């Protein structure tokens, strides 16, 4: 183990190298590009024995990963924003074909209008595509989670997006402990049991036409219909609720660091109020909590690591007895509310005495959001609750009146 002062993108690239990926296919897009530039350099120098396939688009990048994964390779790609949107068709294919692909997402705002800065609209918009989505709070977690993601993906045959905030993490340096190759080799053995191998001597159609009802295949075996495959896939995502914490615990045993599995908390045990987010925003929330605690407000952080599967039961348990949950979303389901806020309200519907859930929209397109802003929004939410408010429209943090420059 050595400590390096590196960006989130470098942490992601080092993790892919430590995972001994065999095929990388990627198309450059800000703020992801340095990830695959690093990998490209290592492949070119011979430092990394892998195939780097240059492609003309993100759609082709993921397609190459799909085909390589289909024949048993461990594969990696990374993208952001409109690049991810351009992949969309293959995002669904990778999941439906049950391929253990790992893709890093340096979260960036979606165009139009063009914006290269951070929010989480890109990956949150892929919520329902059948991938596992893990969000990272700092560069160390990016490295550790990307390695863990291969073990999760290969255990469940479900692809994993490792999401981290563009620029805030992707281009910001911080100390990161880099495990040795031997440590990671012991934790993550080569992919030994690929589900699908296309062998010229025994050819296969992958993802063939699968109609509504189960039907006997050419060998007389009754094969699932489309709906059965979807139920199996959903079951794998639900199994991930157990596998993600298991793998985190195994990583802790092997490497010595744990990230808490599905969710984590900070000063939440005795809190009346929970502040909730995913990604680097949670690091800022810990600072907001310290400021509020200094004023005597009993508040704590509930950080979301796994957004899909959504850890509904775990969040219900962590929020038992709380009066208020303030959710900070860096994404929006247009015409409704922030995606985490909406999902959390559904998760709490069966709670005995659920807390009020107040959503906030913040940081869209890189709009600055400081720990002071988060503390202020929490104070306003508490004031509303004390005034008897049980539900309210999302508050837009730092939204400026038209024409106001600052």
């Amino acid at each position, binding site marked *: 183990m050595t400590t390096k002062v590196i960006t989130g993108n470098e942490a992601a690239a080092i993790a892919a190298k430590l995972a001994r990926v065999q095929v990388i296919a990627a198309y450059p897009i800000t703020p992801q590009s340095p990830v695959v530039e690093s990998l490209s350099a290592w492949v070119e120098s011979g430092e990394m024995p892998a195939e780097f396939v240059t492609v003309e688009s993100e759609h082709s990048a993921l397609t190459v990963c799909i085909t390589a994964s289909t024949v048993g390779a461990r594969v990696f790609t990374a993208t952001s924003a409109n690049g991810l949107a351009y992949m969309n068709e293959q995002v669904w294919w990778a999941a439906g074909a049950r391929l253990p692909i790992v893709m890093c997402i340096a979260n960036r705002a979606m165009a139009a209008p063009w914006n290269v800065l951070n929010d989480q609209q890109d990956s949150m918009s892929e919520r329902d595509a059948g991938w596992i989505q893990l969000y990272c709070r700092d560069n160390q977690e990016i490295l550790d989670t990307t390695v863990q993601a291969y073990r999760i993906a290969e255990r469940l045959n479900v692809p994993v997006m490792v999401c981290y905030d563009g620029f805030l993490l992707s281009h910001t340096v911080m100390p990161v402990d880099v495990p040795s190759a031997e440590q990671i080799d012991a934790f993550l053995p080569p992919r030994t049991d690929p*589900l699908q191998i296309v062998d010229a001597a025994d050819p*296969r*159609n992958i993802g063939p036409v*699968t*109609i509504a009802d189960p039907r006997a295949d050419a*060998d007389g075996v009754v094969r699932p219909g489309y709906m059965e*495959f979807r139920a*199996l896939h959903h079951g794998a995502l639900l199994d991930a609720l157990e596998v993600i914490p298991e793998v985190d615990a195994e990583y802790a045993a092997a490497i010595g660091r744990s990230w808490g599995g599905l969710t984590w908390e900070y000063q939440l045990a005795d809190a009346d109020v929970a502040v909730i987010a995913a990604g680097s925003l949670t690091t800022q929330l810990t600072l907001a909590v310290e400021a509020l605690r200094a004023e005597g407000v009993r508040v704590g952080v509930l950080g979301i690591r796994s957004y899909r599967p959504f850890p509904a039961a775990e969040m219900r348990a962590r929020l038992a007895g709380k009066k208020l949950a303030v959710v900070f979303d860096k994404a929006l389901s247009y015409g409704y509310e922030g995606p985490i806020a909406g999902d959390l309200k559904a998760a709490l519907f069966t709670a005995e005495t659920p807390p009020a859930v107040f959503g906030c929209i913040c940081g869209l397109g890189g709009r600055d959001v400081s720990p002071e802003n988060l503390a202020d929004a929490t104070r306003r939410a508490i004031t509303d609750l004390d005034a008897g408010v049980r539900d309210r429209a999302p508050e837009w943090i730092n939204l400026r009146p038209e024409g106001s420059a600052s």
Partner: protein
Amino acid sequence: MSAHQVSQSRPSVGEAGATGDWRNEAPFIVAATCVAVKLGKITCQICWSYCPDACISQGMPPVIDLTYCKGCGICAEVCPHHAIGMRAEAEHGVCTTDEGGAE
């Protein structure tokens, strides 16, 4: 997880089921017009090479397997001798109203 839990199949005749029942129009070959029949040898066979579902066999004339033909009509389009036609699978009824609409 078993291999049967992912969607895959061995290439074979009809691995997507009896897709002939997807068809609205069925192709038919007029043997007397087919150049292979007229020349008495396996020639042309353009319909066979263009069929996207591989359900035409080479022959004099070629043979269309209607168990799997989806009725796309490409064979009828590409036949240089216009020996292949398409006919409706069923006569569709015409909707009439009490006011005596379209007949």
